[in-house]
């Protein structure tokens, strides 16, 4: 959001963005359900140049016991970046940013997970960002939903996530890293398409009330694109697609 000067043409006269996309076009997305051997469920996502691996364990016992809840299961989420995932090698200690994103993703998943079905236990979601390229939290949330489903955790809906934003005074879908650096606003959205509920919503950057509405609409459309790919990934794993 730094509003830094840049020679980069963010949007050309034909409405084409710096990476060749149209305003309502997401980056290349590839989602795979499963993949890890020891985790109870897992997923891998490539979202633009983001590469994120998610493993799920549970429902399982909680230690120490007093952290558990007799009425409901609990969801625990850790969002973690590898030292080599970003341009400057990252310090391995968890940053405040990672702790906040872990919480935001947890609260975005909770409305989808039927926690009351497994009281006293915990479901752990471990998100590992192998390569980061802007929009990691949306990519991570989308993959985490698939990993939870892959683990057989009962869910009301999948949470699909995609960001909208404002670039060159225009509302666009799925802000990439360059656009985020030079751009005007970034609004990550997590959405349950069947239940029509927004479960993750953040905004950094200045929007008029009209742009604000447009951004939410645009983001929800992006979530629906992601949703289809999530369902396909689960279908491919469980009903096969004639290859891996």
């Amino acid at each position, binding site marked *: 959001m*730094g509003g830094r000067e840049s020679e980069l043409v963010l949007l050309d006269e034909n409405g084409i963005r710096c990476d060749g996309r149209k305003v309502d076009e997401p980056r290349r997305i590839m989602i795979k359900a499963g993949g890890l051997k020891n985790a109870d469920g897992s997923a891998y996502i490539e979202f633009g140049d983001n590469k994120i691996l998610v493993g799920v364990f549970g429902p399982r016992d909680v230690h120490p016991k007093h952290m558990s809840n007799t009425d409901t299961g609990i969801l625990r989420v850790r969002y973690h970046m590898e030292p080599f995932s970003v341009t400057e090698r990252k310090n391995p200690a968890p940053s405040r940013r990672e702790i906040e994103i872990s*919480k935001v993703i947890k609260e975005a998943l909770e409305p989808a997970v039927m926690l009351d079905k497994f009281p006293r236990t915990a479901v752990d979601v471990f998100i590992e960002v192998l390569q980061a390229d802007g929009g990691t939290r949306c990519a991570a949330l989308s993959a985490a939903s698939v990993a939870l489903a892959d683990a057989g955790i009962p869910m009301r809906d999948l949470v699909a996530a995609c960001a909208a934003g404002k670039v060159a005074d225009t509302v666009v879908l799925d802000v990439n890293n360059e656009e985020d650096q030079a751009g005007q606003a970034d609004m990550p959205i997590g959405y349950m398409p069947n239940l*029509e509920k*927004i479960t993750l919503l953040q*905004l*950094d950057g200045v929007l008029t*009330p009209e742009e604000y509405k447009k951004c939410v609409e645009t983001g929800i459309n992006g979530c629906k694109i992601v949703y289809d790919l999530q369902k396909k990934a689960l279908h491919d794993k469980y009903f096969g697609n004639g290859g891996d």
Partner: protein
Amino acid sequence: MTSVGVLDELKKLQILELLEQGKRVDGRALDEPRELVVETNAIPKANGSARVRLGDSEVICGVKIQPDRPFPDMGDKGIFICTAELLPLSDPSVETGPPGPDVIELARVVDRGIRESHMIDLSQLVIEKDKSVVGVFADNVVVDYDGNLFDACAYAATAAILSSKTPKWELKNDVPTIVEGKESEVPVTTIPVSVTMGKIGRHIIVDPNADEWVCMDARITITTDSDGNICALQKGGSDGFSFDEVIKCGEISVKVGSKIREKLKQAKAGNQ
């Protein structure tokens, strides 16, 4: 502050019943924030400060302004950092030790609301490009807890910044040195106001107090600037919002925010 016991369940039922009749436990309208009392210059030795009561939530913010090295690739900008801490005397449930995720989120949301509004013109806080810049540190401490610390801290930080005076420095032999008699106000471009709304059942309420806070299904904090634009937002809590609710919350934040902004301006004016 997040576990819901039997008593909380009963309280929630009562709150919900009232809400069905359009009422709140403390008699406020659904879109009505609690009374806001702002006292600036509570800490005279700091560069700026404010003591804010939002209902019975009370926050003190002190601003320290001092020379610092710029962040890499940000040599043409001063530094702004805003923190928040729950003092253990603010509530019996607060524990000492490193902050948990709740407090880290609180601090980061308050920081982003001010940062993303571009309230402080950081380009004016450069002593010498790439070498030395001015850092503005706004530290919030919560001394009494009654819910909605997001707004209480944001108002305290904003009021403290508005009340701040910054010395002028120049480099002498590479050491930042104060130029006497050149104190000035912190360069401010807009006044951000955060408005936090809770969702209980299908109701949206502004500025939840502690009882309401523990019963909320979800919450949303929206910061608007002096032009009525929306410049930061954070959804929290274990439920979601519909599209219509998100748009409605945006509208409420603009409306309520403009009233709060007048209060903050008055506090500054009263201070001068």
